[in-house]
């Protein structure tokens, strides 16, 4: 009843409302696909739970380390001076750089911010907050198979 008394303002405010919400809906309908487009799709997480290295066990000398591909990420294979083979993720726990083996220190070392890890993967000095992830090594004949433990 009240609205029939003053049809003008209520009709105007209705149209304002209609225009406003349409404009907002239009903007959202443009921005939503664009914003979704900008976010990259989730990469298929490498499901590789183990990898056979293209290196023969007897070719890995004591007190050396080398980087290998574990799925899509770098990992490091180390043979200690005592002859034991070990493997860790080569991604520094500090800021994601790739670590390397330092034969002079018998340590795993990250050049980016001078982080040191011992040969058990423990962060022993520098900024890294956590140890390197350790992998399990199985040697079958001369084949080295690295897997993500349990």
């Amino acid at each position, binding site marked *: 009843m009240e609205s029939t008394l003053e049809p003008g303002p209520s009709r105007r405010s209705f149209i304002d409302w209609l225009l406003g919400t349409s404009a907002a809906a239009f903007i959202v309908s443009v921005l939503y696909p664009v914003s979704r487009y900008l976010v*990259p799709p989730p990469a298929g997480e490498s499901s590789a739970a183990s990898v056979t290295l293209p290196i023969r066990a007897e070719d890995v000398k004591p007190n050396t380390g080398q980087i290998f591909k574990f799925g899509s990420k770098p990992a490091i294979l180390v043979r200690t001076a005592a002859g034991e083979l070990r493997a860790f993720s080569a991604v520094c726990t500090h800021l994601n750089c790739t670590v390397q083996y330092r034969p002079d220190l018998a340590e795993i070392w990250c050049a980016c911010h001078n982080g040191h890890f011992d040969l058990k993967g423990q962060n022993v000095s520098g900024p890294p907050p956590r140890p390197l992830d350790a992998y399990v090594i199985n040697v079958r004949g001369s084949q080295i198979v690295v897997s993500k433990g349990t």
Partner: protein
Amino acid sequence: MPSAAGSRGRLWTWLDERVGLAEMEKLVRKKQVPIHRHRLWYYFGGMTLFLFGIQVVTGILLLLYYRPSAEEAYESVQFLMAEVQFGWLIRSVHAWSANLMVAVLFIHLFSVLLLKAYRRPREITWVSGVALFGITLAFGFTGYLLPWNELAYFATKVGTEITGALPVVGHFTLRLLRGGDEVTGATLTRFYGIHVAILPAIVTLILGLHLYLVQKHGMSVPPSVERAGGPRRTMPFVPDFLLRDMVGWLSALAVLAALAAFLPAELGRKADPFAPAPIGIKPEWYFMFMFQTLKYLPSTILGIEGEIVGIVGFGLAGLFLLLLPFLDRRAEHGGRSTIFTWIGIGMIAFVIVLTYLGYTASPTQ
């Protein structure tokens, strides 16, 4: 008016009727630059603009040979440096001009801060200037990766990983920047798009606003000069100030040419995601003070991860800079705001000391 226009020939008259040359000329002639003992600092804005112009021109030239993919980027830059005539020159000028531009921009920003030129009615000029400063740093960060060499690869890895440490939005921002979870060819393509299209588009808008506001309000006279009183002296922008400006530009061009010729930009080794990080990883010098600060922070501060405290701290400092005209109420009313002068000097000292330490401190500390 017709007689004045007529004396300039028919072409001038023809153009004037269509585009309004006389009005433009009036506008140009009207512009005056105040003369006082701090006027040296007026030249740094124009110098930044000149170096930006060089970036646009050399950047467009580089586009003609550059290929934005992980497989081809390094090789295309190598080809440009070794085979293309003067390719080394164009790339070196682009790299050096970027560095000079950031340096001059630092001087421009801090001189405007210390001379309190952000006072009413120039608040928006200041805010747009700080935005341009942020965009310039983004240009530097994205451009650094494009040659796809080892140093740039790991610097980008570390730089983007730092954003990942941000609370709540960290992981999302990291993926958005990298175009995935890791720094890959997708990151390179993304940085390329940002560097050559998105940032230039934003810069065009904000720089247009910034320059328009500078024209609208004219040069700010520092409060100390205003308080001293006395007669106000000015010089016409055209030709007096512009000619002086051009002396600066020519000098900058000479410095650029010398740097590019004697210290050409290096390329280094191609990025290899499965190689250990090389020794001597460092960011561009203008990020060094932040990088070095993060190194000094303990792993936890009051129970919060040290890195997050650092990143949030720099974010707040940036916000402080952006909102400075609205915080410094005293300068707005023509009073002395000594505390903001000291904050400005403190910021300059912090940047200089930490940058110095970044290059001299032993990496084992």
